[in-house]
């Protein structure tokens, strides 16, 4: 059975989420029973959704690259659920569950993975380019680190307009070695932008351990730019939630940019073509994390230990997660492929009345 206190947490500013259970008041770590069940339901949905995507990939319903978030669900729920609806999230390409957490319906995410018109990007983006600006989800970016300056720009726009939203910009641990990261942190500090940079530190950039490509610890990477660093255990969704809840309010209040090293672990390969364990990490290592650091079993056990979750309730919640994932796949299956006549749509927002925009002799009707 999983234990709640495994992951190596250093310098965390959030209070430890250990022994503050209050069964009499039906509360744990300040969360009500309903809120706790909600977080469990969220994470189980992410898990079942990704398992369904894995299955669909295996039978060819999903193509291209497909990066699963299994093992890292505590961060999707814990970092995004505390945000306001009008806060902004931008991220890299392991983003299916983050998109759902911010409010894109699972149906629209799955249909996008299937490349169908019902997808949140109309089938034009795919797994790595999920977007729905109506819920504040700005992608879905495929170049490591490429989303970081964009996140700074979203935060710039918030400040420019005098708004009080925050932008949460996720990245993998390998992205901190990109120049885009360094430049963006510096600009964010100079201009005191309302942005929280979150490293989903699962220890590996594809198959390369972080320690092999950095002689410094993750925590020190933002210090050179004057940006406060925090470390949080991303496998503990309650700690993570409380931490981001507080941090978002501080940034909203003018605390400036923040850097969060969120410790997590990827239970699947880098992408669907990468085995779970093998050349760069051992079976034993993966097994140890599966046993001790599954964010879902950690929460489940804590709730059960605290008398806040019955077996039947768990089964009901899980059944709903499975049903929603099945429903998403059914929806995606039924959604049509994009109409071939739309190939040239949305290359340009403005089709100028003069001149030709497409030089291939095929897009003539568009300019």
């Amino acid at each position, binding site marked *: 059975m999983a234990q709640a206190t495994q992951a190596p947490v250093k310098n965390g500013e959030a209070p430890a989420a250990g022994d503050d259970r209050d069964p009499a008041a039906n509360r744990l770590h300040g969360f009500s029973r309903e809120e706790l069940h909600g977080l469990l339901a969220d994470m189980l949905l992410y898990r079942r959704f990704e398992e369904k995507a894995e299955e669909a990939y295996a039978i060819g319903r999903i193509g291209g690259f497909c990066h699963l978030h299994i093992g890292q669900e505590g961060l999707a729920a814990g970092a995004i659920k505390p945000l306001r609806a009008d806060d*902004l999230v*931008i991220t890299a390409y392991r983003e299916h569950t983050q998109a759902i957490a911010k409010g894109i319906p699972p149906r629209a995410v799955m249909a996008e993975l299937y490349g169908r018109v019902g*997808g949140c*990007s*109309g*089938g*034009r*983006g795919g797994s790595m*380019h999920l*977007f*729905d*600006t109506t819920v504040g989800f*700005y*992608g*879905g*970016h*495929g*170049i490591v680190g*490429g989303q*970081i*300056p*964009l*996140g*700074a*720009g*979203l*935060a*710039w*726009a*918030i400040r*420019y307009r005098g708004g009080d939203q925050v932008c949460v910009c996720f990245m993998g641990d390998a992205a901190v070695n990109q*120049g*885009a990261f*360094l*430049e*963006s942190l*510096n*600009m964010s500090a*100079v201009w005191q932008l309302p942005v929280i940079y979150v490293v989903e530190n699962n220890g590996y950039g594809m198959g390369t351990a972080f320690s092999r490509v950095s002689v410094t610890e993750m925590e020190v990477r933002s210090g050179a730019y004057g940006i406060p660093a925090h470390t949080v255990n991303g496998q503990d969704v309650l700690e993570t939630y409380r931490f981001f809840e507080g941090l978002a309010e501080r940034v909203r209040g003018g605390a400036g940019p923040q850097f969060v090293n969120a410790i997590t672990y990827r239970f699947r390969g880098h992408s669907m073509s990468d085995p779970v364990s093998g050349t760069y990490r051992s079976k034993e290592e993966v097994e140890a994390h599966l046993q001790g650091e599954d964010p879902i079993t950690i929460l489940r056990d804590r709730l059960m230990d605290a008398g806040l979750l019955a077996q039947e309730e768990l089964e009901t919640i899980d059944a709903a997660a499975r049903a929603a994932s099945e429903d998403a796949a059914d929806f995606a299956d039924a959604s049509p492929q994009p109409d071939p006549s739309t190939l040239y*749509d*949305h*290359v*340009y*927002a*403005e089709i*100028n*009345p*003069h*001149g*030709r*925009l*497409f*030089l291939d*002799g095929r897009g003539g009707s568009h*300019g």
Partner: protein
Amino acid sequence: MGGSSWMGGAAPMAEITYREALNAAMCQEMDRDDSVFLLGEEVAEYDGAYKVSRGMLARYGDRRVVDSPISELGFAGLCVGAAMSGLRPICEFMTFNFSFLALDQVINSAAKMLYMTNGQVPIPMVFRGPTGAALQLSAQHSQACETYYVHAPGVKLVTPATPADAKGLLAAAIRDDDPVAVMEGELLYNVRGEVPDEEYVIPLGVADLKRAGDDVSIITHGKMVHVALQAARALAREEIEAEVLDLRSLRPLDVDAILASVAKTNRVVYLEEGWPFAGVGAQIVSLIQDEAFDDLDAPVLRVTQADVPMPYAKNLEQLAKPGVKAVVEACRKVLYMPGTIT
């Protein structure tokens, strides 16, 4: 010089520099739209590396005229991110040569965003700055960068050659809902010309016939318009009337104007500042042979920079740059005239 027929009538004009015209366009657009801001290296307190933004910090304040760190990738991406949120950034590169550091954000983010979001996220922004060679700036500061931008669907590109075009095209670029690169020229900033005082916008995608002629078409863009006009004057001394078609906008491309000129003269020379391999001229030649093959009386020739990095030594630089003499020779060749002028 052919005027811009768009305005018609007799609008009040002033003779100003190309630099001042760009400044006027930015001020014109910043006055009418608070979502427009200027960001780049040295644009605020220094008044711009080439003084294009002179006085704008005092006029608009540091919220809207912003000095950036020397971080081309970072600040270009920040501007794209701001545009994702609906602002209209003017991102100044001190030269487009430096924008190679930023090309990931130009191509992977700005150009592709609208498409991969299925139309949800337009990028209404401008990348601007000088392109091409000045005088003895050597290999890394002299490159014509048009090809890199115009290659990507999703990007628009204009190359004003005159002060009036600078004002009108930059204004149109700022108002356009797509990412538009506005490529200027260090050697153009001091060029003077008549520019309408009033609000002035030239639609993208409209070429301008800078000189009419019946014998041969010199089609070109940007700074090379001036070389083409000099060549046309030299040819006129031999009683050859060359017309000079300034494309002004490479994407959208005024194909009708190109085809009309080909139909009129049946002989074409494409002049550009960049390298020949996969250059802008290669696209124009392809277009003409696709759509106007029967109008041609001679193969289309290109005059480009020599296919070498720009050398520093003055004599070698002169050899590498496309000049009047090479244009005249190319025109004589497509006219099947023997010999060359000296």
